């Protein structure tokens, strides 16, 4: 590759310090902003506890059965969503990355819809979808006597939470995986094919293992995205405590009754969960990747 062959420059004119300084300054300002917001949350809660005697408000959140349920629901529904999303994102990502076919650009645009649409609109659309579906199935039942009914309830129920998360998060998973597949040279597959693999075998034995890092990245992105999902869930699955209340909903509910301390406490809890999960996934993921590289 060209860059490796070119000789190192002999004379440096001026210093790189400015360049690095700019990088750090520009990038750093964003990092600092993120950290400052978190810090402000933390300081606010501590101040409320120690200066304004708001410990009871914080304790209420910590012992609240609803909040613990919302935590559990958030984590588990995001996990289910991630698994489901990967199952649809892998084929779509692979298709988009490897093949040229008519309508590819259109497909690409369709996949952008869940990313571009305001989350509330997605929730409303899901609600309308199920309402219309209900009207049509009722009409069919009246005309033909055939009862078409969903085996499970979606609106205002847990499957609705997952569906709402899935609709948005899968689009992000597709984007991430497509990039991952793009990075794997087509040559490797071709070699496998010439060695007698079928396309399926080449995919399972060569492409997927190569894409492991990308899969992990896609999974993390999907999971994190689902954990933070709020708008469509509020509209489509409701905010029923002990049923469809997820952590972002809890923050919203606490905030709307003017319980700022409670809202910030839950927010900090979410930050903690996200950080723990992301760190664990990265550490295990990297160890796994590193192990593979050694082999």
């Amino acid at each position, binding site marked *: 590759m060209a860059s490796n062959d070119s000789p190192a420059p002999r004379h440096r004119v001026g210093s790189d310090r400015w360049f690095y300084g700019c990088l750090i300054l520009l990038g750093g300002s964003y990092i600092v902003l993120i950290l400052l917001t978190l810090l402000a949350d933390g300081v606010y809660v501590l101040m409320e506890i120690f200066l304004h005697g708001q410990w009871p408000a914080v304790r209420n959140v910590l012992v609240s059965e609803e909040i613990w349920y919302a935590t*559990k629901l958030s984590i588990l529904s995001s*996990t*289910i969503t991630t698994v489901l999303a990967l199952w649809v994102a892998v084929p779509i990502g692979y298709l988009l990355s490897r093949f040229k076919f008519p309508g590819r650009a259109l497909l690409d645009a369709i996949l952008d819809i869940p990313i571009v649409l305001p989350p509330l609109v997605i929730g409303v659309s899901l609600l309308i979808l199920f309402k219309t579906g209900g009207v049509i199935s009722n009409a069919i039942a009246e005309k033909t006597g055939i009862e078409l009914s969903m085996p499970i309830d979606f609106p205002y129920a847990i499957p609705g939470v997952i569906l709402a998360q899935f609709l948005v998060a899968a689009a992000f998973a597709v984007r991430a995986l497509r990039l991952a597949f793009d990075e794997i040279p087509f040559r490797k597959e071709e070699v496998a094919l010439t060695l007698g693999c079928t396309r399926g075998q080449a995919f399972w034995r060569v492409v*997927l293992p190569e894409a492991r890092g990308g899969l992990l990245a896609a999974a993390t992105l999907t999971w994190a995205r689902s954990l933070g999902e709020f708008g469509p869930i509020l509209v489509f699955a409701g905010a029923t405590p002990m049923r469809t209340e997820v952590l972002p909903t809890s923050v919203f*509910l606490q905030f709307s009754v003017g319980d700022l301390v409670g809202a910030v406490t839950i927010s900090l809890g979410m930050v903690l969960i996200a950080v723990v999960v992301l760190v664990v996934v990265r550490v295990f993921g990297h160890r796994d990747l590193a192990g593979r590289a050694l082999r």
Partner: protein
Amino acid sequence: MKPRFGVVAVASISVIAVAAMLLTRPATSGDEQETLILLYGAGLREPVREIIDEYQREFPNVRVDVIPSGTGQLMAKVLAGEKGDLFLGADSSYVDKAYEKGAVAERLAVARQWPVLSVRKDSKLSIENVQSLLQSGLKVGLGNPGGPAIGKASQGILERAGIWKQVKAAVENHGVFKPTVQELANDVKLGTIDVAILLDGTVAQHPELKSIPIDEKINEPLHISIGVMTTTERPSRALHFARYLTAHDRGLKNFAKYQYDVIDGDAWADVPELSLLSGGILRTAISDTLDEFERREGVEIVRNFNGCGILTSSLKAGGEADAYFACDVSFMTQVSDLFLDPVNVSQTRMVIAVPKGNPRGIEKLSDLAREGLKIGVANAKQSALGALTEQLLARHELLDAVMKNVRTQLPTADVLVTQLQGPNSGTSLLDAVVVYEVNALRAPRDVDIIYIAEAVAPAVQPFAVARRSKHPHLGKRLLDAIRQANSKKRFEDNGFVWMHGGQE
């Protein structure tokens, strides 16, 4: 290790299955717990929290979960079919709309609250009235007109003051619109805005804030009310909580504590007993409705069916009842001091009933005066029907002539029809009786009906709740239930003519 399709598929399914299993709620051990979901206007936070705490202490097998938000947003949820049991709105107009759209079945009034101007207690600003909101540089906060009840109310106040456009522009420039009244209160508290239009009850929940009343000429109170949602799967538990919240010796005390102007609520009872006096004529028309009401509300109705003369006399003699469903308005007027605003529910005509085939050829009122007829009428002192019959005969100067034919005078018309039917078919003891059409229609196989052509006012059945009832609101809900469509059908099936229920 190379991935295999089967392994990946099984692993995926197991992850989902385990997560799904963890999500299905474990059955509560021991007593089964009932859960209620209460959607409430966020401004009512403190009293609602206290009431729920007290309710759960008193009824430990019930859990009340809450969804607080702006009342306007909650209404949208309720209308969209969100699952829940109760909707407590900061203003009744929202609950009423949900009722009109069929999303709320019962409505119970709670309290009144007034929009006020609010600033921090240590504020140096001179805010005296809504005109003060126009001071330049003032950061004003308002509720979103489509969000909380205070949003719509504030717009109304400022429109009546003729300054809505100016204030709105000021808020858009350097103030804020918020989706709940509590968020506005928070903003004033934190100092991010200088002044907001809040509700007096909400201000009372924040010791840092003070309120400045708004001129009553442009102000209007908001009526807090709670509705039972039609999506509820446990209506009697939902109503139980709604009754608790609106009981003057339970939930309303908590509202009063925060300076809400509470209604004169019912007394609390776990299973309230409602005593109902009702004209015997109404028995078949209302029995099923009363049964349904008892089941839905979780209450007991002690029923006393009798001739209305007897019922009215017992009331005059100091008898107690929570509600009275009279056979005719004439009986209600005799005891009107004991009851509140009677509502006319139904009416029925007086008719002459004769044995099948009309063997004595009776065709008009005056025929009843013919020699040798055996006539049955209702007792004029003991029943509405008797009194009406007497008036009718007297008006046509037939009273004496008919009375000499009268063989029996009974307090209730049902028995007259039974006597007309005779012990065996075709062996009537009487030749004719004067009864309500409703009574005669009950025995179509044995009885023919002769309509009385002489213009005669029908008997009108009014329902009223006793002034001294401990459960006047429960009584009014019973009236509401009686005026529903399924009850109307029962009245019509029994031969009554439905009235619009206009007040007397």
